[in-house]
């Protein structure tokens, strides 16, 4: 159908008899393997394999503290080296116990977010009091991303998934485009992996988790460092917080820039 933009509604029934067609009664051999869905889905612009990213989000930083998790990302989506979209929130509240920060190709982030939203709606439709938890979502994302990369058509994303588990323990993990996932008290994508991770790890107390104040202070500091040093960042950022009371996306916060030292640099 030419203008079928309604990709959410499923047909009323599937694999039933159609008039004029030969109906294959249940059971019997499988049909030959079909192409993966993303290459056959009808759409106005068609679909293609791609391993390049076009509009990208830069770093995302996640920190786990004693009462929950915080995920911060700046509000810039770049078009190559052009700072194209400067007010985009890249941290999302998925449900009451999960937040997700997306880096990498932003179209792919929006695409996977749409699928995740549909999953949340499915949860609501079941109406059985069971909602998805961060570890389950992280595991599912890993499977999906690994599957896509194995078919040589990756979703070019690097995400941070965090939240509160059923028993109240905070959870934080990072999943990337290759389906690589790991769980830790601090995770980061992009340049933050090089600049922010060592900073946070240095300040980690040996025998206990961070407190909320410490975590927020670290985020503030790391965002500052990232703004000064990463050329694809900007001074405005949002912070998602998930704790026992729920999820909120705070912001936009601004890095307190101070360029007065620039005059002291030789050759400036």
């Amino acid at each position: 159908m030419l203008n079928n933009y309604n990709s959410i509604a499923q047909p009323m029934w599937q694999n039933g008899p159609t008039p004029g067609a030969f109906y294959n009664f249940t059971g019997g051999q499988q049909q030959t393997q079909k192409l993966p869905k993303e290459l056959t889905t009808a759409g106005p612009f068609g679909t293609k394999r791609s391993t390049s990213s076009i509009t990208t989000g830069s770093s995302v930083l996640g920190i786990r503290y004693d009462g929950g998790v915080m995920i911060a990302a700046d509000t810039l989506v770049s078009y190559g080296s052009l700072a194209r979209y400067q007010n985009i929130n890249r941290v999302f509240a998925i449900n009451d116990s999960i937040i997700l920060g997306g880096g990498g190709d932003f179209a792919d982030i929006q695409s996977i977010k749409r699928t995740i939203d549909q999953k949340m709606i499915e949860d609501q439709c079941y109406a059985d009091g069971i909602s998805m938890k961060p570890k389950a979502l992280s595991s599912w994302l890993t499977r999906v991303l690994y599957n896509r990369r194995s078919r040589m058509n990756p979703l070019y994303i690097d995400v941070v998934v965090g939240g509160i588990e059923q028993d109240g323990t905070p959870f934080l993990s990072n999943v990337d485009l290759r389906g690589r996932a790991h769980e830790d008290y601090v995770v980061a994508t992009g340049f933050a992996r090089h600049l922010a991770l060592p900073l946070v790890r240095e300040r980690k107390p040996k025998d206990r988790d961070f407190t909320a104040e410490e975590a927020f202070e670290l985020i503030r500091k790391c965002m500052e460092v990232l703004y000064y040093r990463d050329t694809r960042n900007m001074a405005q950022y949002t912070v998602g917080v998930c704790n026992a009371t729920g999820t909120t996306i705070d912001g936009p916060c601004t890095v307190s820039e101070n360029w007065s030292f620039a005059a002291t640099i030789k050759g400036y």
Partner: protein
Amino acid sequence: MFRNQYDGDVSVWSPQGRLHQVEYAMEAVKQGTATVGLKGRDAVVLVALGKSSQLSVAMRKIIPIDEHLGIAIAGITADARVLSRYLHSSCLGYRYNYNNVYPVERLMTNLGNKMQCTTQRYDRRPYGVALLVAGYDQKGPNLYQVMPSAVNYNCKAQSIGSRSQGARTYLERNLDCFLKCSNEELICHGILAIKTSQPIDLTSGEQEKAAAAANITVAIVGKDQPFQMLSEEQVEHYTKMANDMGAAAQPQPPINPDDDDDDGDDGRPPGALIEPEVGGVADPQVDVVLMEH
């Protein structure tokens, strides 16, 4: 029920608004031997009575599905095998995707949807098997009764199969204690309940204890207790415990001398009210179902 002109196809309604083929499928459940399920505070117990035969090994009545879930069947075993294969692959797929156990309520919804297809298409027939599904997940212990009509009941205790009314009566009478007793006592209650469903010729004589132990299978799942089928020695041990418990619960002879002996009476006065919340009912298309919410 008798043959009529509206029972040839599952896609034909009767003028009374009944689907006779589905009801006939329920009859198939009554051909299977009895099985009992009961829910405690932290655990669920399944007890099943095997068909006794000297020539063959007893048919498997209890099938483990996952570490947190297992089923007891009554009816056509081949249909049960297909359903258990579906449950196996659902649970395995869920574990692979979400690194977590399949929530029991949701699995029952999806199983019900799958079974409903067979009651609405002219080229399928309803599954001729009822299941008692015992599972433990984040919501606690779960006991579900799944019928060929694709209806699921969330039960506190239930019994299905032939001669299961006696077991249901026992469960109704003792419903209060299930939430208070330990897992061991729960198993004993299950064994006592299923004894009432044994064929008459086995309930007399010393053969009874040996034969009963050989025929009963027990499984338990709960908090810190993965789904486990008990071994023969364990079943014997609990059967002994159950017999003692049953005997201890009757300090004096029943008040009414005409009382039937083998209904597992625990000594309550005959006038005691039967709890209204029992579990599922046999004919869901007619009665209002009394179940916990």
